[in-house]
Every structure is written in C-alpha cells, then in structure tokens.
C-alpha cells in the first residue's frame, strides 16, 4: 500500500494551506444563505458548509471544521471547485466527485471536471477514508438544498 497515493502533495497542500476557510456572510443581501453541519460519528470529524446563492449561481461556499487532512483538504477543494459556479454545473462536479470516491479506485477521474479533486483518486482505495473525503461534499449538498438549489442523487458511502 503506497502511502503517497493517499497523501498526494495536492492534498497535503490544501490541508496545510486551506483555501477559503471560515464561514462568511453573503456579499449580496438578496442571496439565500444556508448551512449544514455534518459529523463523522466514527471519528468525530466535523464540518460546516455554508452556501450563498441567488438560486442560479453559487456565489460563495464557505466552511469551517476540524478533522483529518483528508476531510479538511476535501473542503478546501470543494470551495475552490464549486464557488462561483452555476448550480447545475456544480452538481455535475459533485456527482463526478462522489462517483470517484465510490469507485474503490477503479474510476479514472477527469481533471477537466474535478481539478485538484483528482488527487483524491487514491483515497478511494482506502474504504475507511472515503467518508472523510465525502464529509464536506455531503454537507454541501444539504446546505445547497436548504438554500433552495437542487441536489444530486443520494449516495451511500
């Protein structure tokens, strides 16, 4: 088992220097803002993801949390990938990420869609860590739904 498959430089980078961390209020007072707090009961990792949207574009995705490098880096990548995107497009990325993580290492990720998210391909080989990577993405899905934008299909990690 190659540890550097799991802890790719990109993941460690996002973990040590997270992008867009911290919960923020909406810039545009007309935006719907909602958040979701998810916990991984097996390890105690926690993340809160907040979505600000006008119903079409996800103006901001902010987050805060505590947990392992995988869950925290995943939140940073989520922010980077989906912030400022149209809702429909964001959910395509969401779906691709979930598919990658549910693929037991058999799915080849598309870098054009997933950007830095491709670094998580190795995590999919570690069943115990898939939940860590998915934690912020599941919280995002709930937060977006609460803010009134559509959701991608149910996933069982």
């Amino acid at each position, binding site marked *: *088992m190659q540890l550097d498959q799991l802890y790719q430089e990109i993941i*460690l980078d996002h973990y040590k220097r997270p992008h867009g961390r911290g919960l923020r209020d909406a810039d545009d007072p007309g935006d719907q803002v909602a958040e979701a707090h998810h916990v991984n009961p097996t*390890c*105690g*990792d926690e993340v809160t993801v907040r979505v600000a949207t006008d119903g079409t574009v996800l103006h901001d995705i902010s987050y805060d949390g505590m947990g*392992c490098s*995988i869950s*925290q880096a995943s939140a940073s990548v989520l922010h980077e990938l989906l912030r400022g995107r149209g809702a429909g497009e964001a959910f395509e990325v969401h779906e691709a990420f979930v598919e990658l993580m549910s693929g037991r290492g058999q799915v080849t990720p598309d870098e054009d869609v997933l950007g830095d998210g491709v670094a998580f391909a190795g995590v999919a080989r570690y069943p115990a860590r898939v939940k860590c990577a998915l934690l912020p993405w599941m919280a995002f899905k709930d937060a977006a739904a609460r803010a009134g934008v559509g959701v991608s299909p149910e996933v069982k990690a």
Partner: protein
Amino acid sequence: MTSIAIPSGMPQYDDVPRFDVARVRADFPILGRDINGHPLVYLDSANTSHKPRQVLDVLDEHYARHNANVSRSVHTLGTEATEAYEGARAKIAAFINAPSTDEVVFTKNSTEAINIVAYAFSNASLRPDADPRFRLGPGDEVVISEMEHHSNIVPWQLLCERTGATLRWFPVTDQGRLDESGLEDLVTERTKIVSLVHMSNILGTVNATSRITARVREVGALLLLDCSQSVPHLPIDVVDLDADYIVFTGHKMCGPTGIGVLWGRGELLAAMPPVFGGGSMIETVTMARSTFAAPPARFEAGTPPIAEAVALGAAVDYLTGIGMQAIQWHEKELTAYALEALGSVPDLRIFGPTVPVGRGGTISFALGDVHPHDVGQVLDSLGVQVRVGHHCAKPVCSRFGVPAMTRASFYLYTTTEEIDALVAGLEQVRKVFD
C-alpha cells in the same frame, strides 16, 4: 527503569512472576502476519485482543464434537454441551473469585451487561412491590463519571429519562485521574447506584475504588464497576473489590466476540426482576403469567452463545496458566518503557497519567496537531495497528479539548520492540505532515 535496592528479606524484583513473551507469541497465529509489507505490530488490544490457538481449538472442537443446545436435552450431546457451558461459568467464577458460580451471568458483552442492570432498575421502578433498592424516581440519583465509555453513560441517561431520576458524574482531573474531591456531595442518600469504570479504555487510569466503595456503603447505594479493561489485564477479586456488580467482555481477554459477563452479588441478582423474557429464564409459564428461574438463568433468556462461553472458559484457563500477576507485571514494565519512549517524541502530548502507577498499558496521545486519523494511517502503512478516534468516550476527548486521540494499548504478547516500532512510525508521521 531505575531500580532501588530493596532490603533483603523483602520481596525483590526478581521474585515477580514472569513468562516468556516469545513463547506466548507463538500461541497466537495472527501475530505471524505481515501488514502492508511489514511484520504486524498490534497495539490495539484495548479494542479487542487476539486469540491463542488454545482458544481457537476449543471453539472448533465444540462445534466439531459437542454441538447441542444447553439446559434442555437428555441426550448425550446435550449433556456434554451443558457441562461445557456450565463448566465455563465455574471457571470464570473462580477467575474473579466469585463466592458462587450462580453469580456469573453470561451476556453478549459488557454493554449488554450494563443494560441488564439498568433495565432491571427500570422494570423495578414500575412495580410498587419491587425491592426498593432498585426503584428509581424523581429525586433519586445515578452517579457515573466523565471517564466512562459510552456503554456506561448512555444506558444510565436512558434510565434517568424513563424514571425521572437525575444523572450526576465525577469529573476528571488534568492528570486523568478521577476527581474524588466532591465525593461527599456527589454520592448521597439520594444516590441509588454508582457506576464507574475500573480502568479507563482511553486514559489507562486504574481507579482506586475503596474511598468510593466506603461512601457508597455509607449512603446505602449500589456500586457497579465496568471492568472491561481491567479483568483482562489485572488479577480481579470481586470480594476484595467489594462491588455489587462488575461487567466485562470476553473478546478483550483472549476469548471470542459475542460473550460477556455480568457478575452480581447473589442476593442482589435474586432480588432483581428479569429483563429479557423467553426460554430458559422461566420457572413455569401459563397463558396468563409466568414465574421466573433463579439467577443466573433468569437473565439468560433464549439459547445463549454456547461455544463462545466455552471458549471464554478456555481463555480463562490460558490466562490463568500464564498467571494474571505475571501479565500485570509484564504490562507494567511495558507501560513504563512506553511512557519514557513516547516522552522522547517531540510535540507528543500524553492524555492521562504519565507515570506507570495507578494505570494500565493503554496510552492515548496527540502528536502535534496532526489528526489521529492521519497518524493511524501512516502507522498502518508501516504495519503498526493503533486505534484512532474518540474511542467511544467522547466526554473524555471533550474534557481534554480534542476531537480525537491516538491510542496504543498492550497485552501479554506485546514487546518493547513493538513500542520501538511505534516510536519510529511516529517519526515517519512527523515527516509526512511537517
């Protein structure tokens, strides 16, 4: 360790019973495994222990030669199975010095054992004619501690919700010891039961219970000790402990999963109402009502885990053969070695007692701000198996201000070389996350 000269005529260090760890390791087939290209270094025995060949053989032999249901057959196999099952009960009773074999109730695990006591209280609380020692209502109190495993918290929270009683708890000191300073205020005439962990599954602390026992007796309450972590590692004598109930689980003491023990003072078990109803626990049944068997059968409804009980008897034989005092001493030496070795790792913070006194061979720690999941993952890549997370003791994590901890725990087959492998692995963790 520094040794101090002990005057002659006193017991010397060399008088301590010892055993050959290499020979013990040869009894455990799993210890020969490789993990991720490295020899297995198993430091997770507080989670579950491994099983020696002697126990695996008995499990196999039971199904291959003596399989039958217990306590209900006149045929030969039924008699053999019943003798084996009841024989295991007698071995376990002797192992903990129970005054009577009938005081040993087989359960699924410690969690079920605690729940049986809690639900017996609950059932008694609904019946005005029940023994008042088990009846709870508003104004009554149950006392636990901040050091408990979830299995010794949640059943009491639920009991208090059902009965209107109040749950209170002992705090934990910064050193990871039970804070007994408020004992007199905490355990009072309102207290019906005090349920405490004997050895913490996360801090390793072994609680000195005599002051608490004395107070419990003074106010007329009952005392349950969760001995899940102590029975596998220390000589336990229920008479000496002077508890009312103890619980423990087979899989942490070289036995199989699915078998645990509730020990209770005979007179108390006899006064307790049943919890699970069904076969084996009755005296007679009519369509309108039933009367119940005496303990332990009263608390063992349905077909029990027969092979598991028999194999737990074999585990007790195995541990007794090596000697619980020798096992305790082996782990004490390992703990002293590990505390010193871990103390040399930069940025490492130990939660719980940092001296090998009043503690067992279970050490939880943080390595800088590296998350325990990441610590565990890097260690696993080197074959080192530790537990990471909240260890089913979230209040302990909260008490020390962390969401999770990394835990190394030892047993009779653990070696100092394995502790060295842990320390070397932690260096590797620091490199990855530096």
